[in-house]
């Protein structure tokens, strides 16, 4: 469970960590749009340099980003092979028997690889430098105009933050059930496929039962402390928009504008 890097928060104290989550979400969206403006290598270069600076500012290690990139490597190799057979533009670079490798295929694949790499770096930066709860709060704020259309943004945010709060508790519970079942002779590791499924069931069923029990108790506890669905509440934690947020948004918008300009000219 501890090897998953994608979407994990890394508690550090850096410039990027301290940014307002709203800034980071908006910046992410702007950059994602920028990536898809087709201006060739210059565009990727500009975004790449910006992300490199951001990465250094965030104090995240390069190996951490590399780890989150690794799972998609297989897909990229697969893409390269497909492209080699399908794309027939540009010059012929290599001929093996009847098969011709076109330059277009290679360049197209490099584009896709770069795009994916940049996207992964951007999203990893967001989730690694923002606490899940702050992310929820940022999303809630950004979605707040939807509340006027009767979308229950507060309730959705509350649900997400409760789910996040209970992930470690449920993991603990799963571990406890796992041990309890193992002590009764349930074998999770060996056996046929069917036996494994049965073993997993002996974990899932009690886990579900206890989750419902927890949910029931939690609802009681929340109600007893005065929580009413849809009622007005004061929010204790406030997001603060500072000068660094302004700079960040300014530079990200600058990049987007520059890329559009290059494309148009």
């Amino acid at each position, binding site marked *: 469970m501890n090897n998953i890097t994608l979407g994990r928060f890394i508690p550090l104290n850096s410039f990027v960590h301290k940014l307002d989550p709203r800034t980071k979400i908006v910046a992410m969206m702007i950059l994602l749009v920028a990536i898809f403006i087709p201006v060739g290598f210059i565009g990727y270069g500009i975004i790449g340099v910006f992300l490199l600076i951001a990465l250094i500012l965030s104090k995240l290690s390069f190996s951490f980003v590399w780890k989150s990139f690794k799972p998609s490597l297989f897909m990229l190799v697969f893409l390269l092979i497909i492209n080699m057979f399908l794309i027939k533009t540009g010059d012929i670079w290599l001929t093996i028997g009847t098969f011709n490798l076109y330059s277009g295929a290679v360049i197209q694949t490099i584009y896709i690889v770069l795009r994916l790499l940049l996207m992964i770096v951007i999203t990893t930066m967001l989730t690694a430098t923002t606490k899940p709860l702050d992310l929820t709060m940022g999303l809630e704020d950004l979605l707040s105009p939807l509340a006027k259309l009767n979308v229950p943004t507060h309730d959705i945010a509350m649900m997400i933050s409760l789910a996040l709060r209970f992930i*470690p508790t449920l993991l603990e519970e799963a571990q406890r059930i796992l041990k309890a079942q193992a002590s009764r002779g349930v074998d999770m590791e060996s056996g046929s496929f069917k036996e494994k499924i049965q073993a997993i069931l002996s974990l899932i069923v009690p886990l579900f039962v206890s989750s419902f029990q927890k949910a029931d108790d939690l609802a*009681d506890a929340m109600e007893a*402390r005065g929580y009413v669905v849809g009622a007005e509440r004061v929010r204790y934690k406030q997001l603060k928009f500072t000068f660094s947020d302004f700079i960040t948004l300014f530079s990200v918008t600058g990049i987007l504008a520059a890329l559009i300009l290059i494309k148009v000219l």
Partner: protein
Amino acid sequence: MNKAIEVKNLKYRYTDESLTIDDISFSIEKGSYTTIIGHNGSGKSTIAKLLLGLLEKQGGTIFIDGIELNYDNLNQIRNKIGIVFQNPDNQFIGSTVRDDIAFGLENHCVAREKMDSIIESFAGKVNMTEFLESEPTKLSGGQKQRVAIASVLAMDLRIIVFDEATSMLDPTGKREINRLIKEIHDENQITVISITHDIEEVAQSDNVLVIDNGKLAMSGSPKEVFSNEKVMIKMKLDIPFVYKLKNSLRAKGIKVSNTLDLERMAEEVCQYILKK
């Protein structure tokens, strides 16, 4: 009104089985310490949930601090009465101690500027100041219960129900929480209602309600209740050793005074033998 809680002819059933709460009436004085005891499944926790309006009663009336509970004024009721549940994990709502204490304040629309000082003062009261930023998984059961108590206290309530709040804790945690409950009762004149299996805690309370099979079997001071050993044994409830001794002495015709001090009782027995 001098009654914190007044319950008349309360009735409740979960499904179509027999009544879980069968025509119970009692009242609790303001500022008193009341314990509710009874065998597992006797309906103690159901009473607690009914008092807070977490379950809807099917008969009778409930007055909390002079206000009748009618399910339209739940907000008003929950400004007066709070509860600490049994399972420390399932009542921890925030992602840190600070957030958890803030949750109730957010619901009661306390001004944001005041929240920090309220949170810090009540965290200090339950000795959790150094853990304010800690996540629940990093805390022990006793610590989580202390946070639950702080969260309830922060809401400035007059009545607090403890629903077996110590039953899932280790002996140290249990002692700490019991001491804390006693402390907040003594210091703040808060009406405490404690559902418990801990016979020592019962002995220290002002009043005892004995629930058996959904009915109020007995009520009164611990002395009165524990003198009735036969009824207690019938309900599979234990009584403290001092009471057991006193009851069997009396059954043998040896008159002892109403003391709870073992030494003094021994003296009285000696005097009785000397006189014989």
